[in-house]
């Protein structure tokens, strides 16, 4: 369990499917040999995500004292099922008892960042503008998304990935607006990671040139550290939460590009100083952009939807550029070929 937030790595479900988190188990044989095994295959068509701890590499210790490990990172995917524990087999190290130092110099988040890079590449290739919405629970992420979708769905393709520990209520709320949505349940996990999102993308298959919203688990702490491959994190702070939140939870406001101050329709009823909240947030992140909105009254939505459309236009333009560059390269190669044939 995480002593900071009480969360733990738990089994993750996507659209309620796939339970067995790939928890290898240990067998101890009569001769004292111990093996750990990857679990049986998941149900056909199941998509399961097993966070680390559930699907970690396994060490086998044999009676002769030798140990080999398997790398779970090489989890293989086929036909909608994911198998962990079949990665490239590790090294045998029989009889090694000499202590030695091994230089590592690797970022703790390097695995996640690798998956995030893959997601980001996919977004770039498809011209998808992806946003990671982060906030404390109940600040209005889903309500805001529903209203944004109503405002934009006639003009552009939209898809949504919903992250919550439990239930698919939020995905259902999004689907009711008529756009595709996929629910990830993180179980006891307190944030989405890039691997989960990569799996969700395969299932959701968002359209080229679309706007993709990823609603993270309501939590002002943990999601800050996990890059999902998004173009931007958008932090939502509602006026009922107090203007000190950016100072109390600086990581989230530092990681965000844009802060939406939501529920401004309630400002007459609460002691919330918007200017102070903005000043606090910019102390942590001087470049932070701010838009004031109300997801219930629609105030500020002109500015917010314009921000979204500009971002999407830029992402599409970049894709066009890449395609144009490829076309040019192909033409050059064809000219070369034609020259060689002559």
């Amino acid at each position: 369990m995480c002593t900071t937030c009480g969360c733990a790595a738990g089994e993750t479900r996507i659209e309620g499917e796939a339970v067995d988190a790939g928890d290898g188990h240990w067998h101890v044989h009569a001769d004292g040999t111990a093996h750990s095994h990857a679990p049986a295959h998941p149900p056909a068509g199941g998509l399961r995500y097993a966070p680390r701890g559930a699907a970690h590499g396994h060490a086998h210790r044999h009676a002769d004292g030798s140990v080999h490990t398997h790398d779970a990172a090489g989890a293989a995917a086929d036909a909608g099922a994911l198998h962990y524990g079949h990665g490239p087999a590790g090294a045998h190290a029989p009889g090694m008892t000499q202590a030695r130092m091994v230089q590592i110099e690797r970022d703790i988040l390097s695995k996640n960042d690798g998956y995030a890079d893959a997601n980001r590449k996919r977004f770039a290739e498809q011209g998808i503008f992806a946003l990671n919405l982060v906030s404390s629970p109940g600040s209005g992420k889903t309500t805001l998304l529903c209203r944004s979708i109503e405002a934009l769905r006639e003009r552009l393709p939209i898809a949504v990935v919903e992250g919550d520990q439990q239930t698919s209520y939020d995905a259902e709320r999004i689907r009711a607006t008529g756009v595709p949505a996929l629910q990830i349940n993180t179980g006891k996990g307190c944030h989405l990671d890039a691997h989960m999102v990569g799996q969700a993308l395969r299932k959701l298959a968002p359209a080229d040139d679309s706007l993709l919203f990823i609603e993270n688990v309501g939590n002002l702490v943990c999601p800050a550290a996990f890059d999902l491959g998004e173009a931007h994190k958008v932090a939502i702070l509602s006026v009922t939460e107090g203007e000190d939140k950016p100072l109390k939870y600086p990581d989230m406001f530092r990681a965000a590009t844009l802060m939406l101050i939501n529920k401004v329709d309630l400002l007459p009823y609460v002691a919330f100083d918007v200017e102070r909240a903005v000043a606090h947030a910019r102390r942590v992140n001087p470049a932070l952009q701010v838009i004031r909105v109300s997801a219930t009254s629609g105030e500020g939505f002109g500015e917010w939807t314009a921000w979204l459309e500009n971002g999407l236009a830029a992402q599409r333009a970049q894709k066009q550029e890449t395609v144009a560059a490829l076309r040019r390269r192909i033409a050059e190669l064809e000219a070369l070929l034609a020259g060689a044939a002559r």
Partner: protein
Amino acid sequence: MHEMALAEGVLQIVEDAAGAQGFARAKIVVLEIGQLSAVEPEAMRFCFDAVARGTLAEGAQLEVIAVPGEGVCLNCHKTVPLAALYDPCPACGGYPVQATGGTEMRVKELEVE
């Protein structure tokens, strides 16, 4: 900060290294944790002990090298030590100070056998 997932990240890196370099046990895991990274070393130790159980790093000692925070003051343009992300500049008292060091979370080295 989510120390549990980070502890799992550490273990994964140790296991990758075991695969690549062929060692059976990790005895000491040395981390570099920036003062501004908001990782609580104590929480990290607790979580690492939990996730390392039943693995080649079971019982391994976690050593944390704290990297001090550093930033550039956008007010007086000095490079200054920074204890927390939102602290004022120790030189001029102004805001904001853009962090330039002390945000790292890395596995530095291992003692293995």
